[in-house]
């Protein structure tokens, strides 16, 4: 930018060069591990044992991927992961936007109560064991719904959507009201379509959260192959062969895979787990940046 460089001194130039070098190092440190994992996953598993793979496969093959996709457990995990991502994101979007709309209505009688009731949940949690006992009492353990239902309403998401709705012109709702629309119609026909940008942000947060979570599977469905998830299967494979032990409930699949060639298999599953996110997130970047900022600037 010319106006910035109008009196660039020598020390400024040195600074710029150092800064660029620093950023280049950051890029390498961030990207290298991913490229390395990708290269190993595409490299012949016996060749990998020789070591020395950096960011390019030496003996290119898709064999590792064929191997892992031949396992039913992994395919089942993939299915459940996709299912929970979709169901969790859709239900989360509906709940956050509906609540946010009611809270954005200045005339809503219970507004203050609902808002405070919700805000409180950001400051405490019952903890691990009471949560577990609750799931047990609700008979949710060993079901799919244990992934979706507990986190359905997130106060943080509700408040992000609400501050977005607050920024919309109120006149839009008024005129719809005059045309005889009820509150639900206003929400569904007017508010929801206008909220697309903020809903994209929330959808990303919800989907990534669902896709990435593994601990609920470990805790509630650890021995239940029907509802296993991809992250959990990856966790088992990684932990079963980690140096120093630490194997947790390593089932047959994990053991079998580890015997074939731990390294390649681990890396191939890692890529399968990571790629969906890498594909989606650059497209949504402008949304989540504005979503995060929306929350931050207010505070």
């Amino acid at each position, binding site marked *: 930018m010319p106006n910035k460089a109008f009196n660039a001194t020598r020390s400024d130039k040195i600074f710029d060069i150092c800064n660029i070098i620093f950023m280049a190092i950051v890029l390498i440190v961030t990207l290298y591990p991913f490229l390395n994992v990708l290269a190993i996953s595409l490299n012949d598993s016996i060749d990998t044992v020789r070591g020395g793979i950096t960011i390019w496969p030496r003996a290119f093959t898709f064999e590792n991927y064929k191997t892992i996709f031949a396992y039913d457990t992994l395919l089942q995990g993939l299915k459940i992961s996709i299912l929970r991502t979709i169901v969790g994101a859709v239900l989360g979007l509906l709940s956050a936007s509906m609540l946010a709309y009611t809270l954005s209505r200045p005339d809503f009688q219970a507004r203050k109560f609902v808002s405070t009731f919700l805000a409180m949940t950001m400051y405490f949690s019952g*903890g691990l064991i*009471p949560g577990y006992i609750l799931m047990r009492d609700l008979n949710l353990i060993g079901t799919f719904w244990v992934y979706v239902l507990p986190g359905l309403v997130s106060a943080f998401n509700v408040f992000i959507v609400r501050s977005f709705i607050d920024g919309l012109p109120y006149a839009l709702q008024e005129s719809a009201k005059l045309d005889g629309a009820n*509150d639900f119609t206003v929400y569904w026909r007017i508010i929801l379509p206008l909220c697309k940008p903020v809903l994209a942000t929330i959808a990303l947060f919800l989907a990534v959260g669902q896709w990435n979570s593994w601990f609920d599977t470990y805790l509630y469905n650890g021995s239940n192959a029907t509802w296993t998830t991809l992250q959990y299967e990856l966790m088992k494979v990684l932990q079963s062969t980690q140096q120093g032990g630490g194997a947790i409930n390593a089932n047959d699949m994990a053991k079998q895979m580890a015997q074939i060639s731990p390294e390649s298999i681990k890396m191939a599953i*890692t890529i399968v787990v990571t790629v969906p996110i890498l594909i989606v997130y650059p497209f949504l970047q402008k949304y989540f940046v504005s979503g995060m900022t929306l929350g931050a600037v207010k505070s």
Partner: protein
Amino acid sequence: MEALTPNTIPRSGQDTAKAPKRKRKRGFWSTVLQQKYLYLMSLPFVIWVFVFSYLPLWGWTMAFQNYKPARSFSEQKWVGFKYFQELFQDDRFYLVLRNTLAMSFMGLILGFVVPIFFAILLNELRGMFFKRFVQTVSYLPHFVSWVVVAGIITKMLSIDGGAVNQILMALHLTDEPIQFMAKGSWFWYIVTGSDVWKETGWNTIIYLAAITGIDPELYEASRVDGASRWRQMWHITLPGIRSTISVLLIMSIGHLISIGFEKQFLLGNNLVTDYSEVLDLYALNYGLNMGRFSYGTAIGIFNSVVSIILLFTANGIFKKVTKESIM
């Protein structure tokens, strides 16, 4: 972010002022009837939140009972503070507390300083394309699960062919590969380092947004006065984002002790448990997995109480210093 509580959102004056007045003339129930859709849209979720967020608090009573899963609530035997006494007499508890505090303080300091530093340097980059590219790449690890990150870190630090050991050997800093994952003394640094690697980029978003809000004329003026880039960063950028920094600092102090356990669970192994076990993990291993629900709950309560005390203390100090409050 969490300051988005009801009172902080400015409403457009007109609507707020008129609407309640109009309603006040009606009775409570007729308003309910009139706003039935709003109630229908919010009450189910309120009940939801009550069940999944408030009901577990009821479970705290378990810590004061000799809880047996098969019995109903009225049949449980009350034991007072027995489990807390047991907890405070357990040597392992102090070890775990030390680990928790050590890792949270290291995480707090680095997780707080590094993003500020990084955001300021990013802001100084001149090529817009390069800047955007670095930003996009730096957000990436945030979206990847801890399972994957732990796998990657383990791989990078491994003794056979791990990138870190290879670099160290190439530079002749070490003669043989260091067993990073097997030495307890390394564990805290590994966890903190992984956290910095994963979250730094993401945490810059808010700072970058705050920097955009600084008046560009300040920079112009200082440049005319011959201020160097370092001086600009120190005297304009940093003071410009001071309020953002302090809000985020208080918030992270509030979360100091609830650092979670994913990292420790996934990066740890049997050789380093004396350094990797944190309060939540302790509750999981010695409470849930052994079926000692009461003992585990006591650990959880201790954790929550300490967090809340820390949050209020931090907020109190903040209020005194700046006359502002985030809660």
